[in-house]
């Protein structure tokens, strides 16, 4: 049975997810997205995973949401408030959303998952460190390379040729 904190977190997460997509201004949309990501961090706390929750807050709310906010502010003012949408496509999208919810919901409900509860003690965060260093160390190294490559790739993409040429000329 869901308790009050869970219900409040669910309403906050799903409500701000809808607001992030539907609110007119992109800036308020990004702030609503922060609400969604914060709500997910709250769910992680409810699931006794404080380490993942802190990681979520540090990475998603601390860096990704701020990065998105800065990108939105780089966009022209009119484009932040404009909302271009095809009406028919919108209704088709809502239909697709409802079909997915009902379809996957029916599969999950009929799978017997609702009987699963647990009294096991929460996993210690030291086990996560052990997982990283014992089982998944090649993946950890690969992830480091991927992060470095993505940062270099993003910098290369966003570099402005004209500005660098001006600087070379002067």
């Amino acid at each position, binding site marked *: 049975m869901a308790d009050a904190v869970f219900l409040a977190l669910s309403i906050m997460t799903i409500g701000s997810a809808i607001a992030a*997509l539907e609110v007119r201004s992109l800036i308020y949309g990004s702030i609503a997205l922060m609400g969604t990501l914060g709500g997910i961090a709250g*769910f992680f706390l409810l699931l006794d995973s404080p380490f993942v929750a802190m990681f979520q807050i540090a990475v*998603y709310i601390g860096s990704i949401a701020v990065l998105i906010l800065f990108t939105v502010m780089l966009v022209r003012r009119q484009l932040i408030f404009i*909302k271009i949408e095809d009406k028919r496509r919108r209704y*088709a999208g809502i239909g*697709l959303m409802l079909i997915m919810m009902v379809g996957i919901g029916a599969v999950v*409900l009929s799978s017997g998952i609702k009987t699963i509860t647990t009294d096991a003690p929460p996993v210690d965060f030291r086990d996560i460190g052990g997982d990283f260093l014992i089982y998944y160390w090649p993946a950890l190294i690969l992830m480091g390379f991927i992060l470095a490559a*993505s940062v270099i790739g993003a910098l290369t993409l966003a570099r*402005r040729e004209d500005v660098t040429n001006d600087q070379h000329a002067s």
Partner: protein
Amino acid sequence: MTNTLLDFMIVSIALLAIGIYGVSVKRNAIRMLFAIEMIVNAANLNLVAFARFLPSSHGQTFALFSIAIAAAEVGVGLALIIVAYRMYKNVDIAEFRSLKG
């Protein structure tokens, strides 16, 4: 624990469906990125929920990997959006005809 696995899965399914709605309906590249973030977060919530109810630390480890890779993806995605905006002065994906510089 008062909540069951099903409660978390329902939230996750709702978030996934909203994300798919966003990806299929919105034409604004930044809003599409929001929707992709929601889908990734729904997956992370599922991973951590299953890791809690079938006691194991591996689900949390995978969620941490997933969050880090999502950070890389958003960095590159936003750089692409900035390049496209510079070329077309717009963030509407219907306006993006090519990414050739």
